[in-house]
């Protein structure tokens, strides 16, 4: 057997031994981020699962520099790191934030918005596993409608915050969504982010078997279904032009994605009969919005 080009990572840029749960999206993402970014990168990590996964004392998961920081402060600390590096003439060192959805949608939003509005030369990557997983699965504003969490024990009533809409409002040179199930697309987007200047934002769908309550082996399959059901659409925006990067050939019903996950299982037991329809409508509306956005921005 000859080493095939299909092996995306020929030489690992992280160490094995991560303190992540089985089937965790974080470490997989870390593998690809560090693979694309290379060693000359400073990762800024606010409180999130990755604070632990990146390695407690005395270990480091990354073959790169990791600056741990406060929950609300990822984009701000990254700002300081960026300017300090610039002062030292190290313009070729990348500064990459690796944050969870809580540190992005909620407590970190102020710092995120500030850094984005200043067009800080930073890549901000949010691993969106749609709840506070590090603290034991509590709802964040990234938690989708219907999902059961420790603080929404009957399922969250309202849909997740449209963070990408907020991001869009900052006039960024590059922002995108990506999925660990679509690695080529993910890598391409990481590379585009790497090769752009200014504030770049990537939101990655984050599989989480203990939080989403599914078998760990389903992590990638569910991420793939999320895209195929338009539940987590893949798109990017370059200089204001939005483009959907994955048009599922055959749209699957959203229940295909929801059903294998314990956090949605109550939607299927009869008492929540309308739950799936409502979620389907949210998903369809969001998709229509995206299609329209693509159309509108293409002529800008």
């Amino acid at each position, binding site marked *: *057997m*000859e*080493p*095939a080009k*299909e*092996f*995306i*990572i020929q030489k*690992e840029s*992280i*160490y*094995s*031994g*991560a*303190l*992540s*749960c*089985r*089937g*965790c*999206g*974080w*470490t*997989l993402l870390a*593998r690809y981020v560090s693979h694309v970014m290379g060693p000359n990168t400073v990762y800024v990590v606010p409180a999130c699962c990755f604070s*632990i996964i990146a*390695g*407690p*004392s*005395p*270990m*480091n*998961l990354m073959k790169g520099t990791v600056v741990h920081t406060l929950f609300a402060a990822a984009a701000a600390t990254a700002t300081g790191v960026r300017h300090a590096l610039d002062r030292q003439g190290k313009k070729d060192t990348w500064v990459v934030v690796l944050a969870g959805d809580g540190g992005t949608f909620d407590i970190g939003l102020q710092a995120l918005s500030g850094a984005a509005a200043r067009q800080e030369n930073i890549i901000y990557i949010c691993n969106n596993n749609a709840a506070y997983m590090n603290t034991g699965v509590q709802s964040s504003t990234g938690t989708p409608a219907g999902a059961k969490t420790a603080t929404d024990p009957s399922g969250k009533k309202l849909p997740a915050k449209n963070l990408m809409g907020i991001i869009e409002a900052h006039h960024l040179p590059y922002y995108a969504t990506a999925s*660990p199930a679509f*690695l080529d697309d993910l890598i391409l987007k990481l590379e585009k982010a790497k090769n752009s200047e200014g504030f770049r934002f990537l939101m990655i769908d984050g599989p989480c*078997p*203990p939080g989403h309550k599914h*078998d*760990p*082996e*389903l*992590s*990638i*399959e569910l991420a*793939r279904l999320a895209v195929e059901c338009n539940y987590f659409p893949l798109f990017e925006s370059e200089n204001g032009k939005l483009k959907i990067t994955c048009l599922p*050939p055959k749209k699957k019903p959203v229940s295909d994605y929801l059903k294998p996950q314990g956090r949605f299982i109550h939607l299927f037991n009869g008492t929540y009969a309308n739950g799936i329809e409502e979620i389907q409508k949210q998903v369809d509306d969001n998709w229509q919005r995206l299609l329209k956005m693509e159309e509108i921005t293409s002529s800008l």
Partner: protein
Amino acid sequence: MIEIRGHARGGQGMVTAFEMLAKIFSYRYNFEVQAFPFFGVERTGAPIQAYLRISSAPIQVRSYIYQPNMVIVFDEGLMENSALIDGLTTDGTLIINSDKSPQSFKGKASRIVTVPATRISVERKLGSISLPIVNAAMVGAVLRVLDADVHEAAEIIKLEVPIKPEANVEAAITAFNNINEFVDTLFRLQQSNGSAAKASKPDSPVPFWDKPMSVNKTGSWRVVAPKYETREAPCTYNCPAGTDVRRFVDLAAKGKFEEAHELIYEHNPFPAICGRVCPHFCQQSCNRIYLDGNVNIGAIERFIGDFKKGRKKSPVPISKNEKIAVVGSGPAGLTAALRLRNLGYPVTVYEAMPKAGGMMRSGIPRFRLPEDVLDDEIKQIEEQGVTIITGKKVTVAELEDHYSAIITAVGSHIGMGLNLGSQSGISDGIEFLRDVNINKKTGQLNRGDILAVIGGGNTAVDVARTALRFGAVPTIYYRRTKQEMPAIAHEVEEAIKEGVKLEFLSAPVAVEPGNHGMLKMIIQKMELGEPDESGRRRPVPVPGSEEFISVHKVIAAIGQSSDHSVFSGSPVKARQGLMEFDEPVYKTPVFCAGDMAWGGTVVEAIGSGNDVAKETHAFLNGKTWEKEESTLPITSYDEINTAWFMPAPSHATPMKIPANLLDNFDEVAGNLSRDTVMEEAKRCLHCGECFNCGNCLNFCPDAAIYIDEENRLRVNYDYCKGCGVCVRECPSSAIHYSDLI
């Protein structure tokens, strides 16, 4: 006071178990209790600790437990960590979740208890296979060891578990009743007092560090292990010749046609022929049929066969003394002859007909198998040193003095008659085809003749299609339906396109002379009843449904049998391999292969030839030979991850049905182009075999897949947590979980 320390993996429910135990001993037995976890950064699967104190007096301590009276191990895999029993008192108890006997942990504690908590929990579907939740079962075991009553605890267990309360209580009771205990009275713990961890010192006052994370061997978290394991592909499994179909298709996909030919040739010396006439059991069983159409393996094989057309082969030197005779130059005889010749035996093949090829020459029409293709592959066998003597009908008796072994492979060239009483006006299909193919005659068919062909096999179809080319008007009468026709399906379709009519559920019951020199055939209509021993539904006559039709000719093609004159007319029971005779007893071992023994297709005859050659060789070396059957599971479509296969419709074999069939024996099927063949081969799902796609490596969340010295993808068990993403994302089902328990 009893101090208990527990060791488990995050997610197994230990913290809840200790909570339950605390409540049981407080509410039911009125003890003072204290249960608490080591509040760590718990990840599912990572080793964790919890503590439990039970006391009749108020508990006056709030530290961790360093000298426990009892250590409870929720996962046997954790026993590798020797620090687990640190501080356990000399009279302390060690409870381990294990199927093993407590004696197998001898030396760890003075009292050892094992309980098969994982088995108990998995049986009750508590947790997942990759992480069984064993807490209720462990609670049961601990209650037993502490002389408590499990039934008293049932209500508390029910309240504490998040789901499946009844199953959890059941698990606790089962565990309670199934502990295994071993008391080692001679045991004295070697542990020194106290085991407080030594505090390491920071290298710098600034909190930073740089040790590789890889010092953390997460392999210890694993419950089930993924393993690369090549399994059977249905194509390869179903090839009677034993051809490694999966591999030759892969070679074709890479454009390695030379290698592909060599690979096929190892099992089948007639790829160009089989590419045309084989029913392709491989293709019929191809899993892709459920996705978007099976891989056109026939077209690929045909291209590979033709790729070598006209190339000269050369013989290996003769190295053996034993001369071998083969009677019959059909695919079985020639295959056996070639294999033995390549082992160094001098081999002579005797053929009664004027040219070699057996049924390939006499039974298959030229528009399916052109003569040059047949000649070429036979020539290649001759070039490899096999002597073929044609036009010579021999018997075993004539040969036995001259040969060390005789292989009989005379085929089935005698047609079976219709059981209608009078055979007048009925001719035989296989004889008709032989007449056409060998003697280039028209089989007494005239233009415009209305012909009834009886049967549903390839012979019937070939007869009908040949008849069309002589200007006759053939109708096939078959007593079952199209679905049950044994003929190759696409051949039936081609026949229909060419103009052959088919009448199903129709069986002739009589053929009588009719008017104007025609025949009057009475057809009984049938319906399908219960399945017979072949699994096909048995046709049952419909009373009063007889019809009369007028035809010029009736050709029966309902089956063939062998010509036993090779055994000088003795009645023999032909079977694969070494034959046994009541009378006469030959001096020389006689073997049998081909249609005489089993099968009915070229590829089965080839397989039979391969086998008989091996058996003959073993026999001549004083050994016995038995066919090895694969014991590997066959990969089913359900095991294929179809997300990794883009929709790609099959490339059909091009068909050129001539506008005017009359006297046109040109080949109907055409070749796919080289590029199309490669494209088609790339549709292969690689069932059960790693094809280096890299998904396992690409998707492993733990960077625990590596490429070994032999360039194979392998699991790094030092780090694999057993999440199973590789098992799931393997497109071809080449990674499987090792046994759970």
